[in-house]
């Protein structure tokens, strides 16, 4: 990964939410929603982020454009439009505004982010009003071209959100996110609520936009098949920390963290030869993030845990080129890849 191609660098990012109790709202502890996360995003790359709900994906995503104020850490943005680097930790107001222009978020529920009383044109062009000096006609032209790009007929521009389907509203949300020509899109479960046929349309569009506009994506989703399909690299999070991060193929072919392996065992597959076949399941629930386990956070559910896992937190280390794992035994455990798991499951007995 050439240094010059890095568009976003996140180092030691932390977000602790205070837990408050009682009438005086005394702080009795902290939820470590994001706990010492570091990664880089390359221009034109899609980095997928997966993990069970509550593991900190959304908080991580929102910290980057500073929609959530990080507790600690450094976010460095080196986009095309501004010479030099933009350090978010020390950034002044103007630079934050610049950052928010260049990093846009797309959410799961397009309806929640679209004001029902505004027309599609008003919704899509709204960011322009604060950020660019354009005439009404110029704004309409720009909105029209983006709507067409995202597959909405521009003559629908004066209609209201409720006149559109869920998939169309997601397209409108994407057009709005693109209007300021951002360099990074953070897609937070952006296709999770969509039906498969619509999901396929939107995924295809994300890919086309990436090629045309050299966009970089942080693609947050809980559906691993979708993430595998769209991502170049994948980060697996557990209780606010990175458990594993690797090229997408490497992660699925040869996972290096027991949590990733457990996730691979869990994915249902559209393969009727698996009908009724027994599967290994990850038992129990995610521990309370306000009171995480000692040592390795995963040791309470890990099928391979040893004594050391209860006492010592494993650091995230590079176990193969570009392949990072936070497990004491990342080098030695014979963890199974997805295809191996599927063949193993095929040979399992069925229930009954």
């Amino acid at each position, binding site marked *: 990964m050439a240094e010059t191609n890095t568009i976003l660098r996140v180092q030691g990012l932390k977000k602790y939410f205070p837990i408050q109790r009682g009438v005086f709202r005394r702080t009795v502890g902290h939820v470590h929603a994001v706990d010492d996360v570091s990664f880089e995003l390359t221009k034109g790359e899609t980095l997928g982020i997966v993990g*069970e*709900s509550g593991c900190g994906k959304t908080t991580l995503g929102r910290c980057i454009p500073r929609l959530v104020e990080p507790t600690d850490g450094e976010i460095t943005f080196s986009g095309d439009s501004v010479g030099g680097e933009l350090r978010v930790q020390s950034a002044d107001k103007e630079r934050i505004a610049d950052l928010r222009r260049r990093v846009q978020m797309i959410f799961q529920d397009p309806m929640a982010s679209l004001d029902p009383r505004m027309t599609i044109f008003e919704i899509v062009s709204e960011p322009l009003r604060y950020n660019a000096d354009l005439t009404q006609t110029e704004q309409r032209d720009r909105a029209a071209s983006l709507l067409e790009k995202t597959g909405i007929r521009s003559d629908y521009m004066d209609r209201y959100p409720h006149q559109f*389907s869920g*998939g*169309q509203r997601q397209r409108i949300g994407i057009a709005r996110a693109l209007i300021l020509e951002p360099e990074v899109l953070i897609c937070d479960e952006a296709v999770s609520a969509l*039906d*498969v*046929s*619509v*999901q*396929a*349309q939107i*995924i*295809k569009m994300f890919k086309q936009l990436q090629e045309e506009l050299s966009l970089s994506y942080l693609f947050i989703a*809980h*559906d*691993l*098949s*979708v993430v*595998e*399909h769209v991502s170049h690299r994948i980060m697996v999070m557990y209780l606010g920390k990175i458990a594993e991060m690797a090229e997408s193929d490497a992660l*699925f072919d040869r996972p290096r963290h027991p949590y990733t392996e*457990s*996730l691979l*065992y*869990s*994915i*249902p*597959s*559209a*393969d*009727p030869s*698996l*009908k*009724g*076949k*027994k*599967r290994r*399941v*990850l*038992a129990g*629930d995610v521990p309370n993030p306000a009171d995480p386990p000692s040592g390795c956070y995963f040791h309470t559910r890990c099928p391979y845990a040893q004594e050391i896992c209860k006492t010592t937190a494993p650091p995230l280390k590079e176990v193969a080129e570009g392949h990072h794992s936070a497990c004491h035994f990342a080098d030695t455990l014979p963890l199974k890849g*997805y*295809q191996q798991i599927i063949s193993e499951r095929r040979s399992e007995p069925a*229930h*009954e």
Partner: protein
Amino acid sequence: MSDHILRVEGLKTVFKTFSGDINAVDDVAFSLARNETLGIVGESGCGKSVTARSIMKLVEFENGRIDAGSVEYMPTPDELIDLTALDHKSAEIRAIRGGQISMIFQEPMASFNPVFPIGKQMAEVLVHHLGLSKLEARDRAIEMLNRVKIPNAAQRFDEYPHEFSGGMRQRAMIAMAISCNPKLLIADEPTTALDVTVEAQILELLNELEAEHSMTTIMITHDMAVIAEMTDNVMVMYAGRIAEYSSASALFANPLHPYTQALLKSIPRIGSKEELYSIEGSVPSLLDLPKGCYFAPRCPFAMEHCHTQAPPTFEPEPGHRVRCWLYGEPGDEVRAAPLTASEEVAGT
């Protein structure tokens, strides 16, 4: 002859709305053999849940009515009750609903009242349907909570729904649904809102319970992977009608309906580098349905008459039914009540 628990014929469910009557389920027909798991799959709004709520006589509690068809329920081989003929508030249907036929939902809070402890709610169901004493009901409820692997079940009996994690609430709902040994379990998107790890736990649990209790199940889902892993036979719905019906293995090996084919090509498969296929356009509004085949506007194979004449159901292979003009001409259609697909396949 075969041993069926349910036979649905020509089911049509209509909702009255301000914008007009909505035909949410139209001409739905299928049978369900004892111990079978039938999948109902399709995109949101295609009529999966309404089919289930029609069987349970629940649509009448809304602005809905069953306009045509019958739902014959055979609790034992020599008993037959037409559920559509029962009043939705009758004692008879109330004894069946939640007891002999029970449902689990995507959102467990739909089954639990937030202001009562979970155990108490489970026990009430047992008292009502099985006539157990309070003490017996408590024991049985705890036994069921244990069975679905809720830790410290006896202690959690007195806890409220919000004190359970999402996955535990889902288990508790399943425990309640199967506590009366239902003859038929209808699971409506039971894993849709869950994390993949919890989804795997729940699917595994349902598989175990089906084997233990020789349960008959209708599994409603939008997820083809859940269909593949869980069901014997499948019904693919589109805009209120059955597009295709077959054994699950035949559906995946040889999908006939252009919609099913497209749907299977549009799901991302791990390890495949192929581009996703995307069906252009969107599902039609039930208030403004196309004249001929409902899929015609999006269908790559549509012929002229597809746009003007609604296709009937053909059966090009034994047990494999499809509502599409590619598979027959007027006069070829099947009219007889369908048997279950795998059974017909076995009979050839």
